[in-house]
């Protein structure tokens, strides 16, 4: 057992709240400050803090590199797919009006989906970059 008990216990206390805050920033972006980008960076920061305290190997259990690398293009696909979906529904690219019966609801849904796309790409990119830097020195 290493002598970083305080760091480990402190990190374990803080980590869930960091993730919760990321989700809050993500889904409360319509009303408060924040959005997909900030939430993605905060969630990536949680994984990176976990990797710093408990080791990269443990972090790769919760965020496998294959999944993280998949997230990088997936978010762009979600975002662009939303635009294509609105095209197919007969509107302009990224005009969400046809997503629901009500104008307001349709745009809330559109913003929500698009922000999830931003979240996925940003979070995946940050974690993948961190993994790339960390594993660079070992080869």
């Amino acid at each position, binding site marked *: 057992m290493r002598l970083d008990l305080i760091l480990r216990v402190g990190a374990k206390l803080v980590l869930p709240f960091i993730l919760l805050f990321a989700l809050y920033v993500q889904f409360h972006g319509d009303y408060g400050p924040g959005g997909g980008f*900030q939430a993605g960076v905060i969630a990536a920061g949680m994984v990176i803090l976990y990797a710093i305290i408990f080791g990269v190997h443990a972090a790769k259990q919760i965020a496998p590199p294959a999944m993280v690398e998949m997230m990088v293009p997936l978010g762009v696909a979600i975002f662009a797919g939303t635009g294509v979906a609105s095209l197919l529904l007969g509107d302009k690219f990224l005009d969400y009006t046809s997503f629901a019966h009500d104008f307001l609801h349709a745009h809330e849904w559109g913003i929500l989906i698009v922000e999830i796309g931003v979240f996925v790409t940003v979070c995946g990119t940050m974690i993948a970059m961190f993994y790339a*830097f960390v594993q660079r020195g070992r080869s």
Partner: protein
Amino acid sequence: MIGNPSAEAFVMTVLLTLLAAITIAIARQRNMFGVVILTSIYSFLMASLMIVLDAVDVAMTEASVGAGISTVILLATLYLTGSMEYPQRRSVAIPLFVSVVVGGALVWGTIGLPSFGISNAPIHQHVAPTYIDFSKKHDMPPNIVTAVLADFRGFDTLGETTVVFTAGIGVLLLLQGGWRGGSSRRRDDAEGDDEI
């Protein structure tokens, strides 16, 4: 954020003075570890400044990217490169001259800008009133920043997301040195070390 204008001016003066002091310290520092930590402090001060300016979104981004993740990545880089800068042999006269001239030109350029925080500046006359009126008329989400980013200017944000994607792919290709499933991945999985 702060009600009293003179208190706000005081806080901003203190923060800007600290920013200037840290910039000089970064320029004079030869130990790269110190530079990284000072850059992190710079980002935190910048985030505080953004909160004073009521730009909480920017403050969150600055605090999490500038002070958080980029500091971690720079420290990971220092682990690879070593942390002392080689002593400088060339003269500093020309870089100093270029910096002073560019800085002077920027300060000179600010004279032509509208005064700080004025409501009839051109930036507030162009498209912002349309966004605000439209949001109010259709009862859109109260945070207009989100509505502007993801709805009114969704195409811009798609471009920004693509920039993040492209940058991430570029860094991964450079650092992992190969296509996925290549030798670097397998070697890493086999090793499974748990210390950074």
